[in-house]
């Protein structure tokens, strides 16, 4: 279903047993992501909310947002599609903590008010995927997931810039939702299925938990504090 080549094949496994933060901080080395770890458990991820076609659309998009390079595996390799599917399948996707009473005014997309769509996030993303696919078919005869990388990048840039209008959905709000969910999946705690092997945390140097720095705040003034990042799951 999902194209999982690319980074996983090339990514070597250097598990870094860096537990001594102090030592690491002074060494100045860059902790590398563990590509093998990232790829390991991707094959059998079930989908809870999205269809396989929708997941492929998202794979293409999140990999454009987060391309594989020296800094990290690609978005989908980090589990971002899995993350989005699970979020959309749960309370968030159903519109938890979202005021959904009408009337719904035209003026969706007046950014000062936030999204004004009558749809819950799951329906909103599904409609957006269908609409953008239809647009892509009409303009280049292929669905978004089959666009070559440069064409996909151009499409996303145009969507972001408000140059694409979609008939039934606020195209820019759809773009913002895609980007927001992607970033949440890439940077949140790995317990939600994204940020596999804490790839994004390694990339930026965020140590995750346990986050007690009473001494370190002074000790590491102006010096890098480096530690093997820890997730919530590492403490359970």
């Amino acid at each position, binding site marked *: 279903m999902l194209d999982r080549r690319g980074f996983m094949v090339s990514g070597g496994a250097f598990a870094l047993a860096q537990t001594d933060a102090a030592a690491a901080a002074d060494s100045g080395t860059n902790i590398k992501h563990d590509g093998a770890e990232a790829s390991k458990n991707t094959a059998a991820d079930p989908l809870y909310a999205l269809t396989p076609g929708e997941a492929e659309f998202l794979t293409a998009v999140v990999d454009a947002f987060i391309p594989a390079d020296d800094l990290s595996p690609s978005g989908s390799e980090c589990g971002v599609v899995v993350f989005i599917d699970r979020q959309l399948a749960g309370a968030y996707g159903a519109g938890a903590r979202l*005021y959904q009473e009408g009337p719904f005014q035209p003026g969706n997309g007046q950014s000062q008010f936030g999204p004004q769509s009558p749809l819950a996030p799951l329906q909103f993303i599904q409609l957006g995927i269908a609409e953008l696919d239809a647009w892509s078919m009409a303009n280049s005869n292929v669905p978004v997931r089959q666009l070559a990388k440069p064409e996909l990048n151009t499409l996303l840039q145009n969507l972001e810039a408000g140059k694409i209008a979609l008939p039934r959905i606020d195209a820019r709000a759809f773009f913002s939702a895609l980007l927001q969910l992607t970033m949440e999946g890439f940077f949140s705690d790995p317990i939600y299925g994204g940020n596999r092997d804490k790839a994004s945390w390694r990339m930026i140097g965020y140590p995750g938990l346990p986050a007690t720095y009473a001494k370190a705040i002074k000790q*590491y003034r102006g010096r890098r504090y480096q530690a093997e990042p820890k997730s919530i799951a590492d403490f359970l």
Partner: protein
Amino acid sequence: MVQVLKSTDAVIVGLGWTGAIMARELSRAGLKVIALERGPDRDAAESFALPQIRDELRYSVRQELMQDPKVETVTLRHRLDDEARPVRRFGSFLPGDGVGGMGTHWNGNTFRFLPSDHRLRSHLTERYGAARIPDDMTIQDWDVTYEDLEPHYSRFEALCGVSGKAGNIAGKIQPGGNPFEGPRSGEYPNRPLTPSHANELFRHAATEIGLHPFPAPASNASAPYVNPEGASLGACQYCGHCDRFGCEANAKATPMSTLVPALRQTAGFSKVTNAYVTRVLYDAKGKRATGVRYVDLRSGETYDQPADIVVLSAWVFGNTRLMLMSGIGEPYDPRSGKGVVGKNYCYQIQPTVQLFLKDEELNPFMGAGGLGMVVDDFNGDNFDHAKLGFFGGGYISLNSTNGRPISFRPTPPGTPAWGTKWKQETAQWYRRTASVLCEGTNYASRTNALDLDPTYRDMLGQPLLRMTYNFTPNDRAMADFLLGKAAEIGRAMNATVVAPQPRKGDFNVVSYQSSHNTGGTIMGRTPSDSVVNRYLQSWDAHNVFVLGSSVFPQNAGYNPTAAAAATTYWCADALVKKYLKDPAPLVSQ
């Protein structure tokens, strides 16, 4: 069917900071007090335990501890002739819900307002002449002075174990503190928090250009602390998970950590949670309230709770909405300028300058809610406005509060929001960036106000509160001025990139700005210009008292909670010492 409950001495609506303080003071005085709180009860040890409490997605992004807009939200329009849109998801401000209210997930910056903030119209008139105040700038005096409030500010600081450095003790300027602050009766209960590297860079640069930096006063205990209520606070771990989270170390002062233990042991106090108050039962002829009505959000049952005293501590939106829905006081009409309920709604304007320092390691994930280095040189009227086209100002600070990666990963201007280049810049700058924040005043204007929305309804079918709000020319000029000063400090810090982020366009409710909303039930000298008198007693119902920043006639360039708490202590003092002996208006009309 409404079930009428047994009468009580006092009923309190909302159990955040102000409600909890009042509950403690009234039950200490021997009253039977019932607090009604719309949200759930929480057990800090259970709810805020490691590792789960450090979950950025759940608490910060999905806002688990905050008000659910499905139950109640607000609507916004920018101009009187616009149609309002509902705020479908909270963004710019994050109302609280449940025992502790917003105080559960606040940061802990605990500033006193300047003496001039408490008598703003008089102060500006004396210094610049009445003609300089624009006609539609509806600022006024609090009718209670800084000197009146000083002991109550001190009490709140002792309650919270505030970490800080005094700048002015009884008129004597103290090195290392804020030389602009009002005279204090003593030092802070705890020494300042340990500054971060970014804090130190800011302090150094600000000093170099002749400003007066000082450590932000913070309700994050720098050392273990026992408060006057006998509650123990732990020492802050600089975990960077204050705002929007509960504190696992019990170091952040919250209503739960500072007051609930004492309240638990007070015989006269009880609370009902999931109790959504819909009305103050008001006897217009007698000019008094008879109690409140609430719906139990679990069963859907409606109850009337009769009470001799009704205290509204449901924050800005709740207080104003309850007054309007109950028909207490005349609703404000921005066109005619008549009426008072909903008047002088203010917010804040917080421009920031993002700094990128290529040779520094700033470890942005280490921080604490109130860990900041501040200059007050351009706050309030601390600088001469004679030749400037605006009034007001704000503090400028560099806060090391959180570097949580879903929300905090700035890149220099011009960086795309995604793709290869975005990744490179994010990886390069995450650990080397800091923001200089300007906490701007907001002075009241004739058209910024609150009323009931004609269209949108809450979960129970009642009208939502509608904000009519936009930044004024004064706000924008003031913000640009502050931004310039903040950028100057950034340059003095030798930042590689100094990126001012001006607030442009209409006010937006999407990106977080602050939860420092004020006004709607303002205090003042007469019923024609205020909802409550100087003791926070309603002019239209002498047994109704209204607490919190909804009583501020305009907003200062500080975080509001210490001032809200100080006025609550002041009100409690008058209630217990004067009102209980003679239940009548405390100020004659």
